[in-house]
């Protein structure tokens, strides 16, 4: 690890450095995390810098460089920081760290964590899908088959089965040379599904989502989006989105840290409003999401949300097993 030699340019004001585990590119989750950090930096009057990493080594290098720059807070996004954030914060007790979407073991006092229960939102989307499907066949197009991605797939199908037990679900993975940005392949996968009678496809394929939307539009099927409101991208064809308000949560955490309230793990689930679906929002009517047309579905979703928040329904976390 890097040693805390005096930085050439001592920070005169506040600043925020965000380190991503991969190039931001088409990754909407990373785009959202950049957006949140940028917004928070603006609010607290800090400058903002983005360090994009390519591989584990460059994550470490970027973290070293960030530590040297002595910013107000260093934000690391995702599981990829688990190893580094176990050791580095301890070596630099005066530096504040924020990990988004995961938390290192043996959390140091100067490390704040923000994590999400996206599976709760995916479950709600599944409920909508179960209510709206006619064929009873559901599909998911995901970028790759990684454990993390199953947090969107498995609860989605569980949610659907909770309201339509005979529903079946098929996940397909884009894979290939550039799984996170291959809309043509994603579209082809979605067409494979619709060709098999699937009438609702959940998209978790990053830049491939748009390809999924095009496929369902052509096949008169419907889709779910992810991370942000994607309903407007394909008007009428997107039922709803599995929302993960990374920007909101991250921005709040940065502001807290800047205000001296550091440490701990902040878990954002349905209860905290950190995840959700557009059907729960006040702006549903203007969201462009197709679910707005089905008031009964919206009502049911709200009820299930309440059940989850109240603990009457527990959503299994695929990662917990």
């Amino acid at each position, binding site marked *: 690890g890097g040693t805390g030699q005096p930085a050439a340019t001592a920070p005169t004001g506040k600043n925020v450095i965000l380190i991503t585990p991969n190039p931001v590119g*088409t990754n909407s989750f990373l785009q959202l995390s950049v957006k949140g950090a940028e917004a928070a930096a603006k609010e607290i009057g800090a400058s903002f810098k983005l360090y994009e990493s390519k591989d584990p080594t460059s994550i470490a290098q970027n973290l070293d460089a960030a530590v040297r720059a002595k910013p107000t807070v260093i934000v690391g996004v995702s599981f990829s920081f688990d190893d580094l954030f176990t050791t580095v914060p301890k070596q630099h007790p005066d530096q504040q760290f924020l990990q988004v979407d995961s938390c290192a073991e043996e959390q140091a006092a100067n490390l704040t964590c923000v994590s999400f229960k996206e599976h709760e939102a995916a479950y709600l989307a599944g409920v909508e899908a179960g209510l709206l499907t006619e064929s009873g066949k559901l599909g998911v197009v995901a970028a790759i088959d990684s454990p993390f991605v199953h947090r969107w797939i498995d609860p989605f199908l569980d949610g659907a089965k909770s309201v339509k037990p005979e529903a079946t679900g*098929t996940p*397909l993975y884009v894979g*290939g*040379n*550039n799984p996170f940005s291959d809309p043509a*392949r994603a579209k082809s996968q979605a067409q494979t599904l619709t060709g098999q009678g699937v009438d609702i496809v959940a998209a978790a394929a990053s830049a491939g989502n748009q390809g999924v939307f095009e496929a369902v539009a*052509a096949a008169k099927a419907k889709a779910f989006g992810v991370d942000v409101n994607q309903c407007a991208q394909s008007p009428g064809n997107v039922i709803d989105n599995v929302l993960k308000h990374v920007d909101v949560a991250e921005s709040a955490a940065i502001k807290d840290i800047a205000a001296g309230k550091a440490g701990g793990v902040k878990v954002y689930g349905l209860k905290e409003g950190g995840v959700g679906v557009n059907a729960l929002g006040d702006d549903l009517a203007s969201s462009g999401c197709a679910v707005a047309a089905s008031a009964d579905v919206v009502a049911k979703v709200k009820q299930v949300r309440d059940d989850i928040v109240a603990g009457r329904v527990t959503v299994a976390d695929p990662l917990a097993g």
Partner: protein
Amino acid sequence: MTTFLAAVLTATAPVVLAALGGLLCSVSGVFNMALEGQLLWGAFTAVLFSHLTGSAWLGVAGAVLCTTLYALLLSVPAVTFRADPVVVAVGTNLLALGLTAFLMRQIFGSGGTFSSPELAGLPTLAALGLDAPVAGSQSPLVPVAFLLVAAAAWWLGHARSGLRLRGIGQHAEAAESIGLRVPLYRHAAVLGAGALCGLGGAQLALGNVTLFSEGMSAGRGWVAVVAVMLAGSRPWLGLAACLLFGAAEALGFRLQGLGLPQQAADAAPYLITLLALVVVAAARRKEAPV
């Protein structure tokens, strides 16, 4: 079955166009590994021009023009200056990746993916009144891609310039000594490959889908390079290689639904292509060369 065939044709068309370009270069004696970057550049410029003009066809024309120009970055160093075409290709591929992402932020103001309901995509043949079972769902560029293969096969076998191009690739000095201007033909082949990659990129971004996203060529150019290496100077063989690859890929998708791991589906087209190659080579080999 028809949806399967349609899926294979759609997925294969951009690769076929790029491979055809690469094949022309290989026939002329230039190894073109720049197809990946040129496909990406073609996809980007297609979306850009479609967005600016509101016409998908002008998007196609813009992509062909811009990618032909982009191919100068390969043809001038490799043909005029005789630089190693593989190194130059590594450079231009990287450049295309950076340039498209950069220009995207500059022009569309957003990173990642650009799509908009207003973006004009290519119509399907069905929309143009030609509704046949497999063909109906395709963009007009798909039949164009396959017709171009036939045209290239015929051209290389029967047209004067095609014959000359083959000669140049086989023995440049011999071509020079009968008065052919070798660099001229090679420039033409590399720029022609650029035009074909422009067409392929346009099909990818306005035909297969209607959007641009960073790095969306996603290895198709490399598949095209493999097809060229397999096909030598025979366009039909190149087409066959692309179709075999595309069919294996589409089959992989379907088998994923039955529980085949994603990684196996990823590997399948490559393994099947290699297997086909082994079978053909073993059948062709009559006696071991000592």
